[in-house]
């Protein structure tokens, strides 16, 4: 090849045949350029070559550029502006794809006007075509190499793509690079073969994705054709596409596909997808192109299959993990039912765990009310207001109601499409709901549902878990409902057997407390009672039937009623317990065993008689004395032995005294012995408030607050101060007055609850003092009277007898002295004060002393 001739030649170009060179030489245009200003001057030939006005032999780069093919303008301008290093550029003229000009130039000199570049321009159309051919073959060779290398990288990249999405991503990118394509997509046939589902694509506008993300497999299209024939489907122009698939005319407009190759994706003889490669301009595909597409499609098939297996494995592992998590959740739900709780606590716990396990926003439980044929919101997690407002849903209506009616699970993905009964459900705008009926045996127990604010597609798994939880929960709930009913019956029975109101005798104040045990669901058999006898006596009972539940409560009721009956027969405490023991043995076919203490308080005698059947001793606090336990009168528990004999003990119980009877629940605790408990109680009572209610509250707070296993019953009785109106008598100083004084005094002492013997003795003492007042004084005639004043406070009777004459020492014959002797013997204290005005005998006697 020869060196091409050219003006200012320096750089070699491709060799040309002589004739061509000669022809070309005939139209050599010459130009000069001042790069700084962009100004140019050119010859007529130059103007002619460029189709410029031949009269204007000069212009600017802009003028020249305006004549050049738009695609080549940038290249030309870059070459001209880089002129200080010489110019060699080929370009086409505007409107001509085929005609090529070549421009060469060299910097010539620098003068005052700046740099100057000069060069030539020739038409190189014919040589350019050859050049282009050669260039293309070189590019093709390079392309072939690149494809090969590319395919290797592609295969490596595919090997690393584990997931379907990764595989598709690698494939479509590779297609663009390997084939110079502008768009690509991978479709997979759905499992049932009904649709092509888009796995991934590149180069298409978003609006196309919606329509073509999935389309029926029988839609006439290159993909369906490729799959049907299990062969490449090649389309080289838009016209061909529309001719073969008229239905795709519109889609083509949007997609802009002008040519395409579609390859089936085949694995193990099964065709289950297609690789679609598209170009924006018409194109003829050669063997290499098609071979490349086929290779990529094959690699793609294998990679997709691998990814499918990988994903199946991963899904299986995820399923296993999820299942394990759910099993744990389920276990926790079942565990929750094992704990001894109230039904409400149980349900709250259950719903909380269910909500967590399913990841829902709400979980609600409705109990079926058989009588009203509706559902009552009983417990909720997330929609507690339904419970607090006591929402009721008729069976057959709304969400839960329909589940109850049909006894079938129901999933509603879009709640707005169904009728909702609960106003709160509507108000809270739940998106999706899933619910199941709770059925124990054949019986509908209730409905369990879960809900989410965001719409959610509850899976078969979710529903399975919900059903599983519901069936387990149904049994637990059924059991709890029965248990609760059982407990309510027992509690009602027990409450009904405890006195509704305590008697209010004038001599005593009474208070009582009953606190059910906090542990366990069953009630105990503790009881207390207070019985007002007709004669003013008061019976106090505390008892404890061993065992719990309805049986214990019923036994307690029998004992209580029997005790009342025996008490009204007028029997004493020991005799009553003896009879109760016999009764307990008779009805005790179920091993009835009970402890009881019976105290009969006698206000007239200011004493109490007590008998105990193995019961903790009551605590007695006498006025101004420390608390002490009444240990006497104890015998065997009721029902223990036919041979048991019951003892009686007597204790003073004067006004101001306090009696505290209780069951062992008060003093028996896990963390201390009953002895320690009794000691603590003794101390606590000594420092407790004096009013009964305050005392009882204080004791409960100290002994029965918080966790206490057993029931607690306490009865407290205080013997009231018996304020009696003072008595004032004024009588003539005559012997006949004595009988009147005695009569009035006896009545008054009776009101002060003095015993008969006390009344007699005090009357004698008063009478003797009055006799003195009548017989002894030396008095003026107008003061022939005497006064008797009696007061009773704190169980002490004080009598003051006054006369109004001078005291005369009693004669010492013994008669008169005998009166004073009586007084001293019968009263606790006697003071005689004699003045000029008269004599005053003041004497005291404390009631309730030994008879």
């Amino acid at each position, binding site marked *: 090849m020869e060196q091409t001739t050219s003006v200012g030649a320096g750089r070699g170009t491709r060799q040309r045949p002589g004739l061509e060179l000669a022809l070309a030489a005939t139209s050599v245009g010459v130009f000069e350029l001042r790069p700084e200003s962009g100004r140019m001057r050119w010859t007529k030939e130059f103007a002619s070559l460029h189709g410029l006005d031949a009269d204007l032999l000069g212009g600017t780069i802009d003028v020249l550029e305006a004549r050049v093919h738009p695609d080549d303008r940038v290249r030309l301008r870059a070459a001209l502006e880089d002129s200080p290093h010489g110019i060699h550029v080929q370009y086409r003229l505007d409107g001509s794809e085929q005609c090529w000009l070549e421009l060469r130039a060299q910097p010539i000199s620098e003068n005052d006007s700046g740099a100057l570049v000069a060069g030539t321009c020739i038409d190189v159309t014919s040589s350019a075509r050859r050049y282009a051919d050669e260039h293309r073959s070189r590019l093709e060779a390079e392309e072939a190499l690149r494809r090969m290398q590319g395919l290797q990288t592609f295969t490596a990249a595919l090997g690393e793509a584990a997931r379907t999405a990764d595989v598709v991503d690698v494939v479509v990118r590779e297609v663009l690079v390997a084939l110079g394509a502008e768009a690509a997509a991978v479709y997979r046939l759905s499992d049932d073969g009904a649709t092509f589902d888009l796995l991934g694509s590149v180069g298409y506008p978003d609006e196309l994705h919606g329509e073509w993300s999935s389309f029926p497999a029988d839609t006439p299209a290159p993909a369906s054709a490729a799959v049907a024939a299990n062969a490449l489907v090649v389309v080289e122009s838009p016209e061909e596409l529309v001719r073969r698939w008229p239905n795709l005319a519109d889609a083509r407009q949007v997609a802009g596909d002008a040519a395409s190759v579609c390859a089936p994706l085949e694995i193990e003889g099964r065709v289950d997808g297609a690789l679609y490669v598209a170009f924006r301009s018409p194109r003829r595909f050669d063997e290499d192109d098609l071979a490349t597409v086929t290779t990529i499609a094959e690699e793609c098939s294998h990679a997709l299959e691998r990814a499918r297996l990988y994903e199946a494995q991963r899904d299986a592992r995820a399923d296993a993990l999820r299942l394990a998590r759910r099993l744990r959740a389920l276990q926790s739900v079942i565990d929750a039912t094992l704990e001894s709780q109230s039904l409400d606590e149980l349900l709250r716990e259950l719903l909380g765990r269910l909500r967590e396990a399913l990841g829902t926003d709400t979980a609600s439980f409705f109990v079926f009310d058989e009588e009203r044929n509706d559902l009552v919101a009983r417990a909720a997690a997330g929609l507690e207001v339904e419970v607090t407002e006591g929402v009721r849903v008729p069976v057959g209506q709304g969400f839960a109601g329909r589940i109850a009616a049909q006894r079938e699970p129901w999933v509603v993905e879009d709640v707005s499409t169904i009728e909702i009964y609960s106003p709160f459900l509507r108000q809270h705008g739940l998106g999706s709901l899933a619910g199941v009926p709770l059925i124990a045996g054949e019986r509908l127990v209730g409905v369990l549902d879960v809900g989410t604010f965001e719409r959610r597609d509850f899976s078969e798994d979710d529903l399975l878990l919900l059903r599983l939880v519901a069936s387990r929960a149904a049994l637990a709930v059924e059991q709890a409902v029965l248990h609760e009913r059982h407990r309510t019956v027992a509690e009602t029975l027990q409450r009904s057997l405890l006195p509704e109101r305590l008697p209010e005798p004038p001599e005593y104040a009474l208070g009582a407390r009953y606190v059910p045990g906090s542990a366990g669901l069953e009630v105990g058999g503790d009881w207390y009672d207070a019985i007002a006898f007709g004669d003013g006596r008061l019976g106090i009972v505390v008892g404890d039937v061993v065992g719990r539940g309805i049986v214990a409560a019923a036994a307690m009721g029998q004992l209580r009623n029997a005790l009342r009956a025996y008490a009204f027969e007028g029997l004493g405490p020991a005799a009553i317990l003896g009879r109760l023991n016999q009764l307990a043995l008779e009805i005790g076919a179920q091993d009835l065993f009970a402890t009881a203490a019976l105290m009969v308080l006698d206000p007239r005698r200011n004493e109490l008689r007590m008998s105990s059947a193995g019961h903790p001793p009551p605590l007695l606090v006498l006025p101004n004395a420390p608390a002490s336990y009444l240990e006497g009168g104890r015998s065997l528990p009721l029902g223990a032995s036919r041979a048991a004999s019951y003892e009686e003990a007597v204790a003073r119980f004067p006004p101001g005294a306090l009696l505290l009877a209780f069951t062992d629940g008060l003093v028996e605790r896990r963390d201390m012995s009953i002895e320690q408990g009794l000691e603590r109680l003794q101390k606590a009572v000594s420092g407790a408030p004096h009013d009964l209610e305050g005392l009882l509250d204080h004791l409960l707070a100290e002994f029965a607050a918080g966790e206490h296993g057993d029931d607690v019953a306490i009865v407290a009785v205080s013997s009231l101060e018996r304020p009696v109106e003072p008595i004032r008598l004024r009588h003539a100083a005559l012997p*006949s007055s004595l009988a009147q004084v*005695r009569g009035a005094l006896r009545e008054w002492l009776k009101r002060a609850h003095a015993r008969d013997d006390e009344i007699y*003795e005090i009357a004698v003492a008063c009478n*003797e003092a009055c006799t003195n007042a009548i017989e002894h004084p030396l008095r003026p005639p107008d003061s022939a009277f005497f006064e008797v004043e009696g007061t009773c406070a704190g169980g002490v009777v004080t009598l003051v007898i006054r006369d109004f004459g001078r005291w005369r020492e009693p004669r010492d014959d013994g008669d008169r002295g005998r009166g004073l002797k*009586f007084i001293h013997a019968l009263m606790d204290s006697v003071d005689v004060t004699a003045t000029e005005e008269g004599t005053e005998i003041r004497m005291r006697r404390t009631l309730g002393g030994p008879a």
Partner: protein
Amino acid sequence: VSDLARVEIARVSGVPVATVRGEIDLSNAGDVLQTGLEGAITEGARALVLDLTDVSYIDSAGIRALFELGERLAALGKRLLAVVPEQAPISRVLELADAPAAISLSPDVQAALGRLDSD
């Protein structure tokens, strides 16, 4: 005799038995234990049985009168046999006055009569 007490006199085996019912105090002691018994203290009788079983009250004046009655009968060579059951309300007062040392006390009329026979 006042409203406070009544006296009935009878004879049992020839012995006069005076039964007093009610209360005896300063106001009626003389009436009951002196005047009221006049008819019972007869020549032939060696003793007077005084049944105080139904006396619900007696004071120091009554006891004084009782002692005086005993002294008067003794002066006549007669005995006073008082009947007071142990559980009687007045026994406490009689004890305080050392009555058992001064007069013969029997729990019932038969015992009092028996005491007369045994002597």
